[in-house]
């Protein structure tokens, strides 16, 4: 198959992206679950009104858990984006090579 070197490079970058994506989806799931918990424990006055009221323990814990999960999601997202961009670049080079192939008489 033509374009073997481009294909191999694309596959290498794909492996790295797969790993980063797995980490991102784990972080996304944790953030979503933390968000659901925060909505459950905290009053609307805090969530959307922004009123400063004493926080009960459960609400404080839920906000902090979400804050940490959001930070982890952001970090995982940046790493995943870097790996995805590297894969995309390698795939573009592979696609460009393959797009030039036309039915032709064998050499």
């Amino acid at each position: 198959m033509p374009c073997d070197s481009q294909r191999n490079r694309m596959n290498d970058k794909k492996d790295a992206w797969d790993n980063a994506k797995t980490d991102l989806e784990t972080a996304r799931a944790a953030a979503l679950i933390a968000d659901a918990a925060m909505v459950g424990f905290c009053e609307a006055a805090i969530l959307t009104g922004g009123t400063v009221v004493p926080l009960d323990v459960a609400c404080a814990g839920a906000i902090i858990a979400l804050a940490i999960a959001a930070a982890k999601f952001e970090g995982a997202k940046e790493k995943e984006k870097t790996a995805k961009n590297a894969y995309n670049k390698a795939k573009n080079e592979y696609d460009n090579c393959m797009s030039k192939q036309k039915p032709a008489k064998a050499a």
Partner: protein
Amino acid sequence: MPEIRRMPLELFPPFASDVPTLMDESVTAMETYKDHLLGLRWHELHNQSAILAGVADKILRDIQSRSDLEEIGAKSLSDTDSGMRRFFSALASDNSTEATQTKNDLLAELTQQLGGDATAAQAALDALLDSSAPLFNRRKMQKSSIADDQDLLVPTYAQLSAAANSATVEASIRLAYRKTDQILPQATLEEGDNSLVNREIDKLQQMHDEVINRLYGLLTNDTEGSNSIGFLEACTAEQTRLAKILPVSAMISGSYLALFQRTPAANEKSAQSSQAVNLFEKIERLRVLHAYTGMVRAEMATVDPGRWYSHEKNRVSSREALTNRPQGTPTTIAGLSNTSLPTGEFIAVKGEVQNLRIEDDPSPPKFSTFFDLVDIETGEKTQMRAHMFSLINNGLSNGAAAHIHGFLRKNEPWLTNVGLDIDRLSLTTLNNNSWFDDITYRVRRYYRLYIDEMNMFFTPYMGE
């Protein structure tokens, strides 16, 4: 109890089939397609079209579903982001006893959840109090994450959609060619065949002009930027129309070529040869438009179609609609020997390819493609060169009919008399002034109109 809009839908199917899996499916489908195309397996290639279309459809639906999902969660995420920002901003500026107790409670909770790291906990609390923490940008991060995935899925859909069409077209040409040989082994071109092909060429040219004028017109006339839906609907309709018509035109072209190659040389053969190339050129130009409409459908399904549409509108403001491809002065092959024509004159010639070969080209030391272009009626020939490129790899073959634009050469080491250096187009220059040339350049990953930017069209290789 969490509200429905807070349900983590991203964790459930179909989103559990994530983007890397879709990319793997698309790469596998494309590689099988290429394998059949380059292996000249026409029935298998035709069958692969359905698989490519299926994966393309799956990807388009994924793009649309992710955009819908983002919209569902957008308001509640934005409201929470804003509420949290207001809460912590108020807390930061509040030095009351209660507020201080709240800050201490939050710091204690942070310290515990960060495994006792007091420094990290203080830094995290500071980020919350100065509004720099990611907690306040969750809507933006969610949308950005989906958009990043769609940046990969959009060109993948465009590639698969164009490939599905290509699989059908390329297979239909050869299958019709072979079927014609099988069913009509003695037949040659009749007047009715020539009339049919002429009508087909006119029809395709009309369709080409209609599609370009329609899409270019929609972009140009939408001064308010409020007709993105109309533009999408037009592209969707034209993609369907092109996908319906092109395989039939491909079959006509393959069948015509089979009869043409058996038709003895006669007065009309040169015109028939030219019409064969014309028909293939029309089909190839429409394939560019098909690839573009696919790209539009995918772009307009993303989370921020308005921004893409706005950029798309800007692209027509400085461009004319139709191609500005440079075309040489039409000259017969016999006329090339006219000594009044200067070296470097830009010429357009037509003929049949013979003596096609790759040879060492000493100046500079690279391989180049050389062939003779023969006038079918008179037998006059001229020498052609594609400097430092292999046109055989591009599908050119002996016996192909070709229309070529190039520069007249005399007294070169590779010439016995006069010849032409085939022109190479500068797509990055052409795309500045022409909307069609711009989209030709932009969809080249999905469908390449000018391989190696050669300024020529020719009848394709049919296989053995």
